[in-house]
């Protein structure tokens, strides 16, 4: 797997804008953990095992707010629940019928917004038997780079002003946004994206924990049914 050309091609894909987009925010997250009183090992393990930035912020904030372990678990589960439909969606694309289960469960750890969008952007150009290795190279490198950037952020936070750190955190959602709007070709995607964003903002006052999930399921389902006769890209 690690010596295959497709694995190396996946790594090459990740180096550049994808790694910078995610890494800059991971750097800021490392600096945030330092200022919040966490140590370097905790910062390292958080990205090593979680690798999903919004949930990592929520974990740190729940701890700082004096939450219990159950509070942390539920808050992170809700925040990172987007990974569930994303994994259901990407697995049939990258696996083969013969792909061993362990490899699919390994690849699942690398499912993140950045790897997901980047894989969907190129998957039609890759042979089916190469896709999983490509994805593990792409997502695995983003994961590895995120760990390095978190630790670097922790170590070098004093070199960057607090205002710049806030700017670095903002790079990630802006990169997410650009990747999202590059999918505006189909009407059902257009509808799902705009209605999802609007509903999420409207519902936030009523169901702060659940707004993202409700908005996503309702908007995606409506988008699918309203435009189900549209030819798929």
């Amino acid at each position, binding site marked *: 797997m690690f010596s295959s050309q497709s694995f190396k091609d996946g790594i090459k894909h990740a180096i550049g804008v994808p790694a910078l987009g995610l890494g800059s925010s991971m750097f800021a997250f490392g600096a945030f953990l330092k200022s919040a009183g966490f140590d370097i090992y905790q910062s390292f393990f958080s990205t090593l095992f979680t690798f999903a930035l919004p949930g990592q912020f929520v974990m740190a904030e729940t701890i700082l707010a004096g939450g219990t372990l159950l509070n942390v678990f539920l808050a992170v589960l809700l925040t990172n629940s987007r990974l569930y439909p994303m994994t259901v969606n990407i697995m049939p694309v990258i696996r083969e019928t013969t792909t061993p289960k362990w490899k699919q469960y390994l690849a699942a750890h690398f499912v993140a917004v950045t790897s997901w969008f980047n894989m969907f952007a190129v998957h039609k150009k890759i042979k089916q038997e190469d896709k999983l290795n490509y994805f593990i190279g792409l997502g695995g490198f983003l994961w590895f780079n995120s760990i390095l950037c978190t630790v670097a952020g922790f170590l070098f936070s004093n070199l960057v002003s607090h205002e710049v750190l806030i700017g670095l955190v903002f790079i990630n959602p802006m990169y997410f*946004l650009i990747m999202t709007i590059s999918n505006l070709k189909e009407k059902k995607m257009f509808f799902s994206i705009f209605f999802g964003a609007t509903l999420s903002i409207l519902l936030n006052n009523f169901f702060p924990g659940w707004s993202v999930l409700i908005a996503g399921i309702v908007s*995606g389902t409506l988008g699918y049914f309203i435009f189900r006769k549209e030819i798929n890209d």
Partner: protein
Amino acid sequence: MTSHFIYLSILVASLGTYFCRAFGVFSARNINADSPIFIWIKCVSIAVISAVIARIIMFPSGILNEATTFSRILATIVVLVAYFSFKKNVILAILSSTISFMLFNHFL
């Protein structure tokens, strides 16, 4: 906030996150890439991601909520305008948005 408690929190946060991913692999075992349910899941996925982005811009957690909502909205408009004006150049769009976000945040 003991060190022991933080490690346990990292563990439960990681288990919660990996559960979403692993359950995704499990649920996908009978789903085919050209079935209607696949398209539906794609719509839901992209709508959830879009909902997350909207939430981060409007009601962020972490250090982003130290910036004003106004500067976050203005910088979002900048990234969209820059992306389409610079022929969909991702680096230029993100660079203009980040610089303007820091300037808005500092001066407004």
